[in-house]
Every structure is written in C-alpha cells, then in structure tokens.
C-alpha cells in the first residue's frame, strides 16, 4: 500500500455545502481537511442570491454558524414581488406568501463576503480537529485503490486518503463526474445564471426602494422582455449595492442562440428598472455560473464508496417556481452528510456514511423538495409537445385572456402556492406566454425613461482581469455543429465579438469551406456552460488561477 497522507474527512469546496459539512464534521470531532481551489473561498462563486432558512429544514446556515446574519449577509428580504412584463406594460404581483412559506428568514448575500467569512469559521473549527482549510488547491479527481474510492488527487498536493470524501465542489463537479454520477450532456438539466452587481450608496438604496436599513426587497421579472427565452430576471437589494441578474434554461439559451449578456441588458434597460437604477448606474462586476435544475438533475443516490456528494455537485438546486433555492439545500445536505458519517463511525462502520446520507435526505424531506412528486405527475406531462401547444393556444385565445382578466386574484394566489409553482413545466407557457398575457391584459404602462447604458462586453471582461494559467478547457470537436452554440451561449463571448472565449470563422481547406470554432480561455469566468453545450474536455483551472470575483 502506498503511504498517503491521511485525514478522517476531506471536504472539497468551501461554498455553503462544504462549509456546512465541515462545520458539522468538526462539531462531531472528526479530523477534517477542507480543500478550496479559489484564492479565497467565495472568489469563484456566484449566486443571486437570497439564502433561505427553511422552517422545515433540519439545518440552517445560522444554526451551524451563529452570527451569520450579523456578519456575513446583506439585508433581510422583507418584500417580494413578481413583475409580468409585456412591452412597457407591467403587472406586478406580491408573492410575499410564497416567499414566506416555510421561511424562518431569508437574506440577500454577496458570495465573496459570505464565503470568506464562512471559511474563516470553518478553518477555526476544523483546526481544532487536527485539520483545517486550505485555499488554492484544485482537487482533480478521486484516488482509487483496487477500483474503490479512498481519497482525492490534487494538482498542488500529493494524493490524500480519507474515510469520507465530501464532494461539495459545486456545479460542474469534477468529482461527481469522475465517479460517473454526473455527466455534462443534457442542456435541459441546467439553468444559466448571469449577474451584474451595481454599486449604490446605502441611503440611496433605502430611498429608491422606500425601505429602512434593516429591510430589503426582492423583485422577479418574467414576460416578453427576454426574446422568448425561458427564464426570468431578478433584482435584490444588498447593503450598498444591487444584484441584478437572469436565470434561463440552458436548453432554451442554446436553442434560441441567445446572447446572455444581451438578455441581462434587456432587463437593465427596461423602463420599469429606471425607478431603482436611476441615472447613475455603476456596474462593479459581471459574473455567470451554471445552476442545476434539481427536478431533473438531483442525484437520487448521491454517493459511491467513501464519496458523498452535496449541494450543486449533486444537482440539489431547487427552482421553486420563480424562487431559487440552492444555498439552503447545499447547507442541509452538507450537514446531513456529516451527521451520516458521525453515525456510521459510531457504529464502527464509517464507510456506510453514503447509504445513511441518502436515507437522511429522504427522511428529512429534502429529496421531495428537490424532486417533487407534483412535478413528476403534472409538470413533466405539460412539457410534452402537443399539450404544451394546446395550453399555449388556450392561454393566448380570447377565452384564456378573459380568464386572466376575470381571475386576477386567483392568478396572484396561484403564484403564491408552493405546490402549484412546483408543478410548473419547463415550457414557454409559464415563463413567457402567461406573464406576457398578464402584462398585456392587466398591466399598467410604465412611463419612466431608463437611461442606463450597460457596459460593453469587453469592458465587462476587462474589469475581470486575472491569470488563468494553462488553458483549462480543450475543444475536442471544433466544428460549428458540435461546438458553435458556445459562441453565443458563453456569457463572455458573442457572435462577431473577437475578445471573448469562443469565436467562429469560415476556413478554406482543400477547396471547401468549413465552419469552425476556436477557443481562448483567457477571459473565461468558469461558468461551465461550454462543458454542456460544446464538445470540450472541461476542467477547472489550477488552484488560485482563473477568475476572481470580488462580489459574487
């Protein structure tokens, strides 16, 4: 046997999932090593983001990390609205009931601040167990012995053995892929999130939203402002900034050949936004990341040998209608995985942690939130072509429109029903058609003029300068058919824009013309999109290399 360095537990990634796992392992006295590839935890991470503490959840972030809300979050979300947009007409519903359903509290967060705060706590806690947290370490895969997973391999360190490996390495988990639990094949299992953070004086935030310093708002947007791409937008208030972004189904982005940065700009420049953004829009960061859709991607058995997978890495990201819940589930899953290991160890059988973890996910009701039965029963059927077509037609017909007008209150109630929103099929009907009709039939015209001029893509990229090290993504098939979608879908590339990652060109070879794609990873923000929509050999950059978000 090779003489490897050994820890009882190795946790890969220090986002909310990894932090929760590490904290709970440490509390159970397990010697825990945490490996994070960023220069700082949070430097790689993006979320909208509202972190929820659900009343029904066995673990919440402030339960595991007292003082979290005072130290690491931005503002509590006290009001929540959805705006149905049709041109310049907007119908707004208060979805406070949906927001508050099962919610102990929900705060807006910026991930750099949040995760680096968590990481400091995690380091203190794990240090006491003989482990600790290391940044700038890229875990490249699983260490196996006689075909069985026994630890991890790293770019910067020699292989490490452990009794439990917690893969909390987020979306595009190299560990889940190595274990064969996840592939990055189907665009319809993912969303793509793109976000801008705009600086704003705290007093101005208070004034423009008419809130106190200990209040915050969440605004969601859907309708016809995104060129028919399925998804929506959000705006959240932070202490001294706004987070404004979009989340779209990746298959829809791919099919429509949509340019993510332009969809974000459509939101930023809509007249409705003028009241909040004013004339002094100053974007401090542009970012993007894939988001798994738990309805389709959540692993039903997120473990193998000594490996357990938590959070985005296991697809545990719930889109509850327009509300996005990833961080809270990552926290719960991380803490449950730790609990499972502690149980297994006390029974003298530490290697059964995975099995226990799976059971806990079911018993605690997490699995049913991630893969709701109601969606399997209704939503999936709704996605079948003919039904979707009929539903769209009905909704758009005079009858449908009349129904909408007659039943305004009912529609608002429907938006606030957790069961109904969990059934929403992934079709244009709920994301585009219905909101547009709502806007048209019930909406009021917004007359404000929006003066926001979003930065050009090269300025957005320019603000994110960093050393990527060696190219971390390889184009396996550079034909346009195989990889051309990335030219538009990559959030830092665009058709006819030379400064991004992906470019396409016509090349003359042996008398015939070929449509080819080329890749330059220099401006890459590591969102993961081209791992799914293009034919690539995709890895994260080496520890400490690559994009470094200041906000997240």
């Amino acid at each position, binding site marked *: 046997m090779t003489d490897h*360095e050994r820890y009882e537990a190795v946790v890969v990634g220090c986002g909310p999932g990894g932090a929760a796992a590490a904290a709970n392992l440490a509390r159970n006295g397990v010697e825990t*090593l945490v490996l994070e590839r960023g220069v700082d935890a949070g430097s790689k991470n993006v979320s909208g983001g509202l972190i929820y503490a659900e009343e029904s959840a066995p673990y919440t972030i402030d339960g595991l990390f007292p003082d979290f809300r005072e130290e690491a979050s931005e503002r509590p979300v006290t009001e929540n609205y959805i705006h149905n947009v049709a041109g310049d007409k907007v119908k707004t519903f208060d979805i406070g009931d949906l927001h508050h359903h099962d919610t102990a509290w929900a705060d807006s967060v910026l991930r750099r601040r949040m995760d680096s705060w968590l990481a400091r706590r995690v380091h203190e806690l794990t*240090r006491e167990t003989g*482990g*600790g947290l*290391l940044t700038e370490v890229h875990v490249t895969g699983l260490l196996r012995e006689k075909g069985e997973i026994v630890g991890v391999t790293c770019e910067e*360190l*020699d292989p*490490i053995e452990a009794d439990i490996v917690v893969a909390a390495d987020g979306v595009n988990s190299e560990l889940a892929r190595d274990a064969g639990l996840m592939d990055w094949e189907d665009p319809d299992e993912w969303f793509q999130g793109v976000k801008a953070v705009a600086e704003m004086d705290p007093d101005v935030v208070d004034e423009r939203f008419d809130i106190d310093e200990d209040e915050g708002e969440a605004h969601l947007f859907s309708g016809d402002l995104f060129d028919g791409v399925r998804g929506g937008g959000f705006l959240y208030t932070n202490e001294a900034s706004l987070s404004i972004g979009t989340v779209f189904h990746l298959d829809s982005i791919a099919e429509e050949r949509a340019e993510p940065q332009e969809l974000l700009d459509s939101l930023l420049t809509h007249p409705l936004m003028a009241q909040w953004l004013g004339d002094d829009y100053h974007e401090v960061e542009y970012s993007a990341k894939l988001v798994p859709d738990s309805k389709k991607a959540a692993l039903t058995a997120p473990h193998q040998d000594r490996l357990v997978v938590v959070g985005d890495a296991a697809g545990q990201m719930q889109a509850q209608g327009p509300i996005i819940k990833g961080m809270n589930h990552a926290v719960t899953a991380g803490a449950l995985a730790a609990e499972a290991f502690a149980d297994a160890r006390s029974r003298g059988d530490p290697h059964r942690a995975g099995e226990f973890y799976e059971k806990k996910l079911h018993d605690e009701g997490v699995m049913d939130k991630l893969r709701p039965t109601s969606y399997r029963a209704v939503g999936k059927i709704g996605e079948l072509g003919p039904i979707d077509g009929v539903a769209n037609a009905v909704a758009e017909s005079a009858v449908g429109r009349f129904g909408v007008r007659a039943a305004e209150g009912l529609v608002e109630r429907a938006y606030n029903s957790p069961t109904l929103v969990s059934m929403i099929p992934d079709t244009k009907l709920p994301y585009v058609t219905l909101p547009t009709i709502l806007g048209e039939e019930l909406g009021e015209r917004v007359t404000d003029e929006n003066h926001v001029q979003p930065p050009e893509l090269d300025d957005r990229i320019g603000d994110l300068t960093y050393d990527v090290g060696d190219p971390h993504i390889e184009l396996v098939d550079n034909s346009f058919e195989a990889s051309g979608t990335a030219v538009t879908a990559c959030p830092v590339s665009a058709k006819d824009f030379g400064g991004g990652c992906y470019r396409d060109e016509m090349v003359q070879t042996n008398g015939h013309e070929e449509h080819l794609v080329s890749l330059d990873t220099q401006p890459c923000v590591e969102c993961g999109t081209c791992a799914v929509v293009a034919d690539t050999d995709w890895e994260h950059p080496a520890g400490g290399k690559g994009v470094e978000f200041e906000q997240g």
Partner: protein
Amino acid sequence: MHTVVLTKGVPDFREGQVSFDEDGHLERGKTPTVMNPNDKHALRAAFQTRVRNGGHVSLMSMGPPGYQEVLQEGMRDVYADDLYLLSDREMGAADTWATAMTVATGIENLETQPDLVFAGFKTADGETGHTGPQTAYCLDWPMVTHVVSLDIDEEAGLLRAKRLVDGDVTEIETVEAPMPCFVVADPEFEPTYRKASHRLEHKQLREETQERAEDYEDVLTVWDHEDLNLDPDYIGLDGSPTIVAGVDPIPKAPSEREATVVDGDDPSSLEPVLDELTPFAAGD
C-alpha cells in the same frame, strides 16, 4: 532544527521609492531602507525547513539601529521566531570581510548552535556576493551555493539540495552535505509544499509571524561588540582590508546620437535597418 538567516538592509531601488540627486548619487536619506530582496529567498528557504522539519528560525543582521525595521519586515513578510541585530559604532563602515567576521561571531554567540545558516545571493547595493561565503569560511562549515530546492534528512544529519551549476538555470545538480552547513539560496529558489499538513502549518506559522512582527521588540536581541567580545581593531572600518580607491560614476548614456527616422508604413525604408541588424541576429 535551528536555522539562522543572514540579511541586510538595502536602499529600496524600486521605481517610485528610490531617489537620486542631480549628479546621479543615491540620496540615502530620501530612499527607504528595505530587506535585501535576495535575502527573502534565503528566508523562504529557511521557512520551508521550519514548516517541514520544525524548529526555530533566527533572522540576523549587522547594521545601524534602523535595521530593526528590516528584521521586522522579514518577520512580517516571510517568517522568523526571533531577531538578532549586531549593532554599534565600532562595527560601522565594515567591508564584506569584517562583516563576515562579526556575523560569524554572532552566530557562535547563539545559545544553541544552528544546523543551517542561510544567506541570500548578493546584495542589491554592494553586488559582491562575498559576505555569505566568507562567513562560511569563518565558521569553517561546508557551503552549498545557488540552491534552488532543499530537503533535510534530520536522522542522517544531511541536507540534499538542487543547485545551479555556475549559477546557470540550464544545468542543475543534486548535492548532499553534512550539517551544520551554510546555504546560499538562489533567487530561483522555489519552496515546495506538497503535503496538506505542511500547507496547514505554513498558514498557521504565517499568521503567527505576522502577529509577532507587530511587537517584534519582544523577540529582538541587540548585541554590540562587547557582547560579542570582539576587538574593535578587527571589525568595522578598522578591520576592513578592502580599500576603495575611488568611485567612478557611471556616465549617463549620451543622448545625442544620430537618429534615423524610419517610416514604418514604407517597407523599403526598413531594409537598411535589417542590414544593420543582420550581424547581431547571427549571434556575433
């Protein structure tokens, strides 16, 4: 493991820090003093042994009282457990030999004999590269220079080093030496930490040394020539055999050379330039 690292202060030659008078003389008063950049490589090498093998790192310098801050800088930016400053008027204006004598005596005066002494590869002001080797000579220790990587075998009492042959990166040899030993770290020295436990230790020690550096006086020992029992005739200016016969200012590059303007848009005007350059391209 006890290691000592030797350092000195040099003018901060970085753009924006250094200042020269009209005649091109360095203005010492206006230029901040910093730790000799090459010594940081030596200190990193010592820190690596501290992380991997444990023990104790002492940072030592001979110089005016102001060098306390140079020692503090090393402690803050890299690492040190304690600091030694050899300082009094008698030691002033020493050449490299008198410095080596003094420093070697400082090392011998330590409570425990170190296993390793590290020095950087030449100073940014003197550029001689003599002090290290002369100190090794005074101590009568083996010496390994141009070290780019280092492993310690404590049980065998050996160090294993990779070093640049003739200071050239193209040729690297591996050598072994018994300890105690004198090591001159090359600017190419790269500390390596491939074990998680080493990185955790590194992180912890970095935090500690930064804290310690805030109250560095608590761990600073200042010795004068009497503490070291040194005869003033053998140290400082009196003990320096080097005679500086004179200093030639380096003339400013004459600016009024004949210049030929080349029109970049006109390929034919580039031909004479190419003709001029061809002999150099051949390597002669």
